[in-house]
């Protein structure tokens, strides 16, 4: 989780990723941010986020992103 938070802060240092749960719903992350986050996650966790996982629910909070990564690592 810490690795993810660090990575997220790297993309946007002005957002409180630890508590915010409406990153997409409230328009806090722009599409370019999401692209950067996806490519950073792919690289750092050695996963490939499929198109089907790129939905608001999975990117609304750091927790949701982490759950998605864990699921990807599991199977």
């Amino acid at each position: 989780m810490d690795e993810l938070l660090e990575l997220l802060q790297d993309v946007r240092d002005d957002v409180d990723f630890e508590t915010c749960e409406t990153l997409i719903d409230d328009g806090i992350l722009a599409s370019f941010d999401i692209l950067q986050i996806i490519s950073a996650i792919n690289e750092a966790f050695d996963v490939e986020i499929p198109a089907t996982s790129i939905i608001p629910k999975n990117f609304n909070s750091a927790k949701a992103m982490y759950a998605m990564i864990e699921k990807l690592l599991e199977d």
Partner: protein
Amino acid sequence: MAFFSVAFFGFVLLFLIIHDLVGDYAPRYQWTVRLAAGIAFFTYLSGIKIVFILASALTVWSGALLISQLAKNNKISRKDLPPEEKKASKKKCQRTRKLYVTAVVVFNIALLILVKYFLPVADHPIALPLGISFYTLQAVSYMVDVYGEKYEPQSNFGKILLYLIWFPQLIQGPINRYDLIEKDLFAPFKLHAPDFRYAFYMFLFGTVKKYALADLLAPAVNACLNNNSHDKPGAFVLFGALLFAIEQYADFSGGIDMSMGISMLFGVKMNENFKQPYFSTSLAMFWRRWHISLGSWMRDYVFYPFVTTKPVSKLTKAVSRKFGNHAGRALTGGISNLLVFALVGLWHGPEKHYLMWGLYNGFIIAISDALSPLALKMNRFLHIKEDSKCMYCFRVFRTFMIVVFAGYFDVIGPVRTGLACFSNTFLRFEPARAAQLIGGLFSDGLVSVQSFATAALSLILLVINSVFKEKGKSPLGSLCGRRYYLRWVICFALIGLLLYSFTVSSGIRGFMYAAF
């Protein structure tokens, strides 16, 4: 077979009857009638070149099944492996899948490039296989989506062929996405009066845009822009470019309306391609509202994959660290936009002026993105309200003019002539001489007062329709719900306008985008 010909109407009617009959007795197989219509239409217009579309369909159909099966098999076989081996096995499978998807995509794109850019310049120019620029992009999107596990692949080859060869989309798009159209393409459909009405109005309004507006302006546009003269007064060129902006929109969106209407008769709602583009407040927004299916294709299959590649995201990160987040994004976003629009330009044709036109669009979007914080600061400093009506009108006008100037690289042809016309517009406006030249168009009989008046009337209808749509209303939809006499009066008025336009027209033209 033109879209507005006895042969085409006969074709649609014949297949509509068969479609309806099969729908009554064997609804499960109704989609095969759509497939037969597509094959008949394609073969009628392109003959043996049907092998091109068959090759595309065959490669994406088998390729998609293969990569999906590989993933499934791997999932089962790695299930009980220890974590490290699991990872390695998954990675190996991913690599193989990537190899297959790349091979299929490269094959299809190479086929497109070969027939579009190399064969026609040989001694005997050949006509392109019908709709190749459109269905190739569809084929690629399907393959990449299955690779990204966006949806399950289709196991029926006929259905994939239908997705590519669906006849209303072959003339000029839209570039339909599989997941958005598959339900309609393969489901049974019974044509009832309300659907028929809506489809008919859509088709009729499309014909008005195309024949009672675009085609009537075409001679004047050609006279103003299509000659290699560097000496035209700026006002004359600008007049032509303004007419071209109207002509192009009416031609393309009118043609799309006609295709959509025909497609709806068979129960297939195609992807949207226009959303009142001339009400856009920025060029980037314009491209989200004009030829939407091409723009979104470029975004999903070029822009996104490109900015997420390792070198580009590394560059973004490095620049962001040194010069701030905005700089990083503006730089890589800008580079990606230039790439995307260069490709959009080249998609239109291999000529240099299309590349210039693409780069012009990409450059303006990149620069306005890079300067956006500055513009915001300036507006604050000058106490300009961002969301005022005035500002909105200014932005719409500014965007429209940027698009009009883009026309200089689009329609004029040679880049040097386009640039000369561009400089004349600002340095040698010469309105008096332009008025004389425009008067000459009328006295030489190239254009007539009647054709201009008819075009003006159609334009007014188009603007009214667009204003309502922009406000979230659907004029065609609300027309469907009106009493029958009102519907007939409006229909007859539109048909009258259309018929009158044929008497003052200098001839029916093909669709501009059919050439791409």
